[in-house]
């Protein structure tokens, strides 16, 4: 195998693992529900199999009892009655009392009637050829024995004892022996059937046990795989979080070191007397002021993010005009925009309804979006700021949307969700040496969601991005809002 092929072979499991991790990552967001559904499904399937096998075993056992056990009992009764027929006949030989002889004859006859009836029932229930043949033979042999028995009884009653004994020995005994053998064969047939049924029950039981073990094993493996996947997902998340935090620390350090280096250098120059003129001192002061403000802003952003960690509502909600918000944001970002040499193109729809929110928080949110636009716009130096209303549609309440657009580097579609994660930094922007803490969008989203709104993004690589802040309209104004879909504008989505 050549080196590239070998490399590819090594890479393939890695790719599979990556795909699996992606799947697990997506699945782990709903891990509790999925686990419950999987466990319930497995339990239901196991239960169904077990119930079915139990019913099968129960049916087999019932059949075994009905067919084999009752059959054997019936044959046992037949054997007893045939013996009783003969025994009563022989008892008649033991007495000269005609009354007793008649009584024994009666007993013999009653027994033979039960036998005849039992054989007829067996013949009626016989289904297999062997059973039918045996039943016919038994019926025939019994029918042959009865006249001999009657003649023996008649001879006994008439007092011809020696003739009766002779006839019984010469004809009765062999004839009765044939009946006895027939019954033994019937019993053997029932024994064979019972053995077959027992084998069936055992086979069903064995099959049930194997299935149960298999299903439980499968369920165990599935559960183990699910637990392993969830644990792995959590571990990966923890590793990713730790990595992002390390990157954050590095990034924050870098963001702090740059102004600190400028401040230190300015301080050194002033201390060394290199700055003599008033104009230079003023210039240095300005630099120190800017750098300090930048540091303060960074620290404020971190502190603000930390303070919103618990997502508790600390904002003062009030009725705000959209124009008021736009003005405040433009004022707070004017210096940044001017220094960066950007042009802002505001498009404010007239007669925008008021929204419910905290001016400072909304301002912070939009500042972050504008700051990102400045950071990632590249050479275009253009920012669009648009405020408009969106009527109610598809179950969404009417809202005011403020969109911040740029014509910058854009965002990959696969990163649409990740960019809102705290400390997330796209590998692409990191490689482009664009610095940041990875907190701006996370903070903006938290603020928007805390105020009852949301942030969506539409972006295309090398074309630009549009981040839209959705703000709910105050309760009183909703009634006045038109709900026609004709006025709907294409909304951004994440």
């Amino acid at each position: 195998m050549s080196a590239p092929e070998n490399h590819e072979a090594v890479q393939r499991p890695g790719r599979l693992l990556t795909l699996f991790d992606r799947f697990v990552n997506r699945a782990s967001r709903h891990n509790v529900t999925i686990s419950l559904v999987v466990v319930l499904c497995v339990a239901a399937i196991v239960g169904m199999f077990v119930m079915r096998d139990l019913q099968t075993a129960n049916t087999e056992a019932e059949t075994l009892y009905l067919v084999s056990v009752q059959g054997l009992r019936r044959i046992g009764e037949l054997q007893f009655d045939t013996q009783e027929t003969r025994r009563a006949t022989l008892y008649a030989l033991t007495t000269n009392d005609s009354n007793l002889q008649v009584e024994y004859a009666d007993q013999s006859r009653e027994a033979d009637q039960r036998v005849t009836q039992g054989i007829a029932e067996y013949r009626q229930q016989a289904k297999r050829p062997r059973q039918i043949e045996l039943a016919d033979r038994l019926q025939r042999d019994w029918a042959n024995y009865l006249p001999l028995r009657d003649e023996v009884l008649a001879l006994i009653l008439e007092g011809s004892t020696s003739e009766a004994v002779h006839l019984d020995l010469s004809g009765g005994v062999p004839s009765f022996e044939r009946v006895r053998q027939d019954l033994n064969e019937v019993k053997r047939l029932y024994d064979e059937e019972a053995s077959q049924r027992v084998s069936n029950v055992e086979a069903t039981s064995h099959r049930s046990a194997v299935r149960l073990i298999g299903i439980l094993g499968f369920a165990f493996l599935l559960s183990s795989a699910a637990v392993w996947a969830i644990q792995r997902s959590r571990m990966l998340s923890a590793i990713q979080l730790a990595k992002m935090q390390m990157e954050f620390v590095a990034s924050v350090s870098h963001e702090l070191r740059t102004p600190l280096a400028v401040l230190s250098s300015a301080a050194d120059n002033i201390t060394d007397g290199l700055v003599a003129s008033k104009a230079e001192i003023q210039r240095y002061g300005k630099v120190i002021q800017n750098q300090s403000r930048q540091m303060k802003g960074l620290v404020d952003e971190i502190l603000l993010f930390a303070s919103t960690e618990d997502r508790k509502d600390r904002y003062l909600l009030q009725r705000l005009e959209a124009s008021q918000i736009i003005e405040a944001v433009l004022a707070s970002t004017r210096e940044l925009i001017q220094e960066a040499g950007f042009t802002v193109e505001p498009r404010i729809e007239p007669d925008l309804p008021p929204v419910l929110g905290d001016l400072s928080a909304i301002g912070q949110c939009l500042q972050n979006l504008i700051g990102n636009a400045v950071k990632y716009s590249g050479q275009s130096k253009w920012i669009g700021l648009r405020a408009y209303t969106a009527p109610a549609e598809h179950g969404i309440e009417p809202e005011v949307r403020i969109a911040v657009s740029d014509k910058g580097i854009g965002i990959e579609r696969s990163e649409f969700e990740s960019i809102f994660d705290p400390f997330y930094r796209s590998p692409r922007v990191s490689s482009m040496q664009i610095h940041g803490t990875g907190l701006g969008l996370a903070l903006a989203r938290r603020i928007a969601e805390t105020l009852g709104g949301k942030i969506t993004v539409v972006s295309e690589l090398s074309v630009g991005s549009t981040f839209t802040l959705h703000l709910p309209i105050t309760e009183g104004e909703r009634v006045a809002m038109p709900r026609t879909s004709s006025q709907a504008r294409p909304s951004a989505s994440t």
Partner: protein
Amino acid sequence: MGRLASLATILLAVTGLLLAGRPQGTPPSGTPTGSQQTTPLTEPLAIVVNRSNPVDGLSLAELRRVFLGERSHWSNDRRITIVMREPGEAERKVMLRDVYRMDEGALKNHFLRGLYTGEILMSPKILASAVGVRKFVFYSPGAIGYLRLSDVDSSVKVIRIDELSPEDKKYKLRVEARPAN
């Protein structure tokens, strides 16, 4: 003693003959007669044989021969077995009077003598009840016995005597009816 016993036997035989010769329904001596006399109710006494027996009727004389053991086999060569009730039973008394025409002692002597001489092959079988008689006749193809007509069922065959069936008014063998409960 021997003479006295013979005299007693003769007396009994004479008495039996006298009794046998008395018309049916005649009350025994010492019973009231005339307007106070009541005719006791009677019912036919059927002579029964096994259903497989080819015989359908006998004359009274032939019946007497059969019951006396003077005829030992049926026409199908089956040996005849006589079935009787125990001494003292009304049916037996009728047979002694109308068929045997002798008393118990004479009957006993007859069979003892016959068995001793070999003229009779077997003494009569004694059954305690009508049901016993009926069953015996049913089980034994060569048996012949007697039953009140009310005790007869389909398990046995009733034969005609002197061409008369028990239902005929002129049928001679009649036994005193059982007292109503």
